[in-house]
Every structure is written in structure tokens, then in C-alpha cells.
């Protein structure tokens, strides 16, 4: 028997192949990968541990890019390739670690929000009835709060800290996923393959986990990729408002926020470099997510 499909291709491979069609998106993916690696191996790459106060020297503060520090045993201080911030922190190291925190918060918060939201959304859709109504009312309430305010109040409440910023971001985002997943699940639930599974007397848990979930998640995951960028951005804004991560362990956003007051003084490097890195990161994530969304669109997949 002949067939129309010659290749025995897995969906993942097909996705990758279609993804690779846009050069810009491939570039974005490459940059993102590089950034992630840089963040992951920051302790190995960074010349300094910017979070160890003992390694900082206030006398080396605010040095322009390419300066040497003064206070070294040998007399020649170390080289600060991208300058230092107002604590004498090596900008390069600070940015690498900051990227780690920013990406970490963005990814962790998004993943947590996604799992929480998806679970509740699925539950609501599959169970229906009162549970559904209750969950959706909570979602409505959550969504009618402006995100930034929720985060603001929460972080103030929980006291600033990496974990708490992530919690605030989860609190801001989960409802969104719950609603999206529920909507997707309601559509999928009507499809005949679910009915077929019910007809095959499979257990509810099995139907939800093996049939419903895998079909609701992919579009949401793509959205989540975009949300990572949002989360990073929101964390930066919180840091700017003085409510973000600890001051001695700055994220990219906090570095920018700290550096911005030196802009007028012409000490651009303190906020420009982390700003550019943040921009690059978010740009890369968006490029990747954008393309992912395009290729995961079934309308475009058929050809």
C-alpha cells in the first residue's frame, strides 16, 4: 500500500523543521541558547562573584568600562571590562549573575504559574458544574486586579526576595493560564477522540492526563514562552520600584534600576549594558516564542 507520507517523522522533528524556516527565529534561538548557557555557567564565566560582598570594593565603584581596580595586593587591580557599579561590582559579573536571576525567575515563575493554572483549568473544565463556576469566579477576581498592583502588594507583603518575587509573579499569572487551559480543554473535551476514550471505558484520570492534557497544553506553552518575557519585565519593574530581588543579589532589572540614577551623570554603563542584555534576552525569547506559535498553528501546519 502506498502512502502520501514518505518520512516517518515525529511531531517534534516536524516542529523543528518548520521552526528552522525563519532565519530570524533561528538566530533568536541561538542567542537565547547562548544566554541560557551564560546564565547557567555564570559562576564559571564571571570574573567575580558579584554577590559576595567581601569580593566587592567600594573604592572600585563606578569605574568606566575597561578600568583597572586600584585596591589590589599586587598594586594592579583587576580589569573591569564593562566597568563597575556603585558598589564596585564588576558589571560583567553582575550582568551574568543578574541574567541568571532574571531568567530563573521568569522561567520558574512561568512554569509554576503554568502548572498551577493548567491543573485548575483542567479540573474546572473536566469537572464542570459548581467547581468550575467557583474556580472561574476566582479567576475573574484575580484577573480584574491590575497585575502590577497585585505584584506590588504581594511583594510588599511577603518581603522582597527572589522566591517571593517569583511567588508574586505566579500569583499574577496563574489565573491567565487557568482560563486559557480551561477554554482549550472545553474545546478539546467536545472532540470525538475524548468521546471515543470514554466509550473505551478508560478512567477519568487517564482521559484527563493522557488525552485531554497533552492536547490543551501545547498552545498554552507557546503563550507561556511569551509570558516568560513578561515575567522578566515585570520583575524588572518591581525592582525598579524598590520591591524586587535583594539589593545585594541584583537581577538585570535591579541593575538597570540602580544604574539609571547615574545616567544623567554620564555613567551610562551601569544601566545601558544590563539594559541591552535584558533587551536582547526578551527579544530572543519573543522571537522564539513567536515562531513557535506560528509553527504550532494547525492552520499553517497542513501545507
Amino acid at each position, binding site marked *: 500500500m502506498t502512502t502520501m507520507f514518505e518520512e516517518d517523522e515525529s511531531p517534534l522533528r516536524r516542529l523543528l523543521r518548520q521552526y528552522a524556516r525563519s532565519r*530570524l527565529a533561528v538566530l533568536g534561538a541561538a542567542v537565547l541558547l547562548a544566554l541560557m548557557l551564560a546564565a547557567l555557567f555564570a559562576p564559571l564565566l564571571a570574573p567575580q562573584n558579584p554577590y559576595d560582598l567581601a569580593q566587592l570594593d567600594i573604592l572600585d565603584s563606578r569605574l568606566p568600562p575597561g578600568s583597572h581596580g586600584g585596591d589590589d595586593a599586587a598594586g594592579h587591580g583587576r580589569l573591569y571590562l564593562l566597568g563597575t557599579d556603585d558598589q564596585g561590582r564588576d558589571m560583567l559579573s553582575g550582568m551574568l549573575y543578574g541574567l541568571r536571576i532574571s531568567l530563573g525567575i521568569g522561567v520558574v515563575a512561568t512554569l509554576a504559574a503554568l502548572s498551577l493554572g493548567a491543573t485548575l483549568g483542567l479540573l474546572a473544565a473536566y469537572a464542570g458544574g459548581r467547581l468550575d463556576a467557583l474556580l472561574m*469566579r476566582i479567576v475573574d477576581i484575580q484577573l*480584574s486586579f491590575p497585575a*502590577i498592583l497585585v505584584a506590588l502588594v504581594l511583594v510588599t507583603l511577603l518581603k522582597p526576595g527572589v522566591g517571593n518575587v517569583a511567588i508574586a509573579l505566579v500569583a499574577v499569572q496563574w489565573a491567565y493560564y487557568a482560563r486559557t487551559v480551561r477554554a482549550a480543554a472545553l474545546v478539546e473535551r467536545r472532540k470525538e477522540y475524548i468521546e471515543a476514550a470514554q466509550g473505551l471505558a478508560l478512567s477519568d484520570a487517564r482521559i484527563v492526563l493522557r488525552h485531554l492534557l497533552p492536547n490543551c497544553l501545547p498552545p498554552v506553552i507557546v503563550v507561556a514562552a511569551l509570558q516568560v518575557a*513578561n515575567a522578566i519585565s515585570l520583575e524588572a519593574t518591581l525592582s*525598579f*520600584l524598590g520591591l524586587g530581588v535583594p539589593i545585594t543579589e541584583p537581577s538585570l532589572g535591579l541593575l538597570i534600576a540602580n544604574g539609571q540614577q547615574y545616567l544623567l551623570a554620564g555613567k551610562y554603563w551601569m544601566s545601558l549594558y544590563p539594559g541591552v542584555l535584558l533587551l536582547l534576552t526578551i527579544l530572543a525569547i*519573543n*522571537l522564539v516564542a513567536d515562531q513557535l506559535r506560528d509553527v504550532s498553528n494547525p492552520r499553517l501546519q497542513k501545507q
Partner: protein
Amino acid sequence: MLIYMIRRLAQSVGVLLAMSMLVFASVYLIGNPADILISMDADQTERARLVQAMGLDQALPLQYWNFLLHALHGDLGNSFVHGVPAITLVFERLPATLELACVAMLIAIALGVPLGLWAGLRPHSWVGKGIMTGSILGFSLPTFWVGLMLIVVFAVQLGWLPAGGRGPTREVLGLSLSVFSLEGWRHLLLPAVNLALFKLALVTRLTRASTHEALTQDYVKFAHAKGLSPARVVGVHVLKNILVPIVTVVALEFGALVAFAAVTETIFVWPGAGKLIIESIGSLDRPVIVAYLLVVVSMFTLLNLLVDIAYSSLDPRVRLDEQSA
């Protein structure tokens, strides 16, 4: 429609109630307003007197209950900091925020829809791709950073526009607005652009996506087959269809815009409600926080309702009472 209104009303009351409770509890948990409000050199007696005057000596549920009783009479309490009714304060500042948000939204729509249409109609052209990549930038730049850059470039370096504050205002229909003078606009421009940037990206992408989607529909092909000019097909058939999602998102985002104005207002010293809320959170001015959130959430809810109504006029298929709860 009536049912729908009742349902929405009940929902909003629930939302407002839940919200006020949450805010009450969270402000309580953050800290004691008395600590920050009372001047440091005040002694214990003075403190005790003030705490009592603000009603902070009572148990939290009791405070909440009192608040509810007063709220039913439209009294949301006096600002701890300003001493005036919190709701008055919020309404005093709201016009400035609304003005900023409206102008920002207008900028976003006026630029975003044409750009999005262009990109949607020519998705493979360089211009189209350029618009889309450019719009990612709008998403990527943190608002506060862009704001500072705008100030540095346009106010300090070039000296074209003022760095912050609001221009002269005029009372119109009880709202003091600053859009009636050149000076007013000069002050408005930078913060509005700053605020608009994110939404501009959003509107552009949404328009493009909807256009793209609409173009694959049979009715577009049918319109072409009727021999309509491409201008009419795009201008009437496509536009009217993509209007539905755009109006929805724009209206919903308008609420977010008002909320997000807090950051822009802080940077540009725009005397709006967003700045007020940031200050109030900073000083734990609970009545103002509650009043602000109540107003904003009510606005959100109202907008939602308006969206739904607009929806049904734009998209005749939607009938309000059929949206199941």
C-alpha cells in the same frame, strides 16, 4: 440582556467585596500604617492617640466591618496621609491618569492598527517582517527604562519637551484636562508615548494576527469574487471583522493601562492616580489603596460590560444572554 446585567452586577459586587477584604488583610499584614505615618519623634501617647483616631486599634475584622458599614454609605474613609476622603482624592487624580491613558491608547491604536494591517496584508514583505520584529521591541523594553531614556534624550539632551509634570489644565465637564493647550500637550507627549509603547506593540500584533486570520476566510474570497475593490475588501470586510478582537483587547487593556500608568506616572511625575497609589502603598495609606482599587476594579468591570455590549453591536452573532456563566 437584563439577566446578563444582573449576573454581571452580582459578579462585580462579589469581586469588589472580595477585593476589599484582600486589600484590607494585605495592608494589615504589610505593616502598621501608624508606624510609617507618625513622625518619628512623636512619643507613645501621641502614637496611641493617632492609632485610635485612625481606628487601627480595633481588631481587623471589626475594622473591616466598620469599613463596610461606612462604604455602604459611600464613605470609604479618610486618607491617613492627606486627611481628606480617600475617594475624593482618587477622583481628583483620576482625570490626569485617564487623560494619559486615553492619549496613550489613541497613539497605540492610531499607529498600531495601520501597522498591523500592513503587516497582515503583506506578511512576507520586508516591511511586514520589520514591523513584526519592531513590535517585539515594544514588548521587550521595560517601561521605566524607556521612560528614563525618553527623559534623557528629549528633555535633557535636546530640551524639546519638559521632563515631567503636567501642563496647565482646564476644567471641562468637571474634569481638569490638559489637552487644550500646547503646553499641556508638550507635557503629555513623553509620558503618553512611554505608556503607549507596550500597547502599540500589542495592537500591532493583534491586528496583524486578526488580519492574517480574516484573510484566509471564505468571506474575504467571496468579497473578492464579487468584484469589490481591494480597498473595500480590506476597509470594510476585513476591518469590521478584526475590529471585534481589537475592541475587546483595547478596552480590556485600557484597564491595564490605567493600572500600569503607575510606573510611567512615577517617572514623569504625572500627578495621576497611579502615582497616588504607589505613594499610598509606600505610606500604607489603606483607605486610599482600597478606594483606588475599588475604583479601578469597578472601571475594569464597567469596561468589560461595555466591551460585551460593543461586541454584540460589532459582532451580531454574539448575543449577550447566551454567554453561559
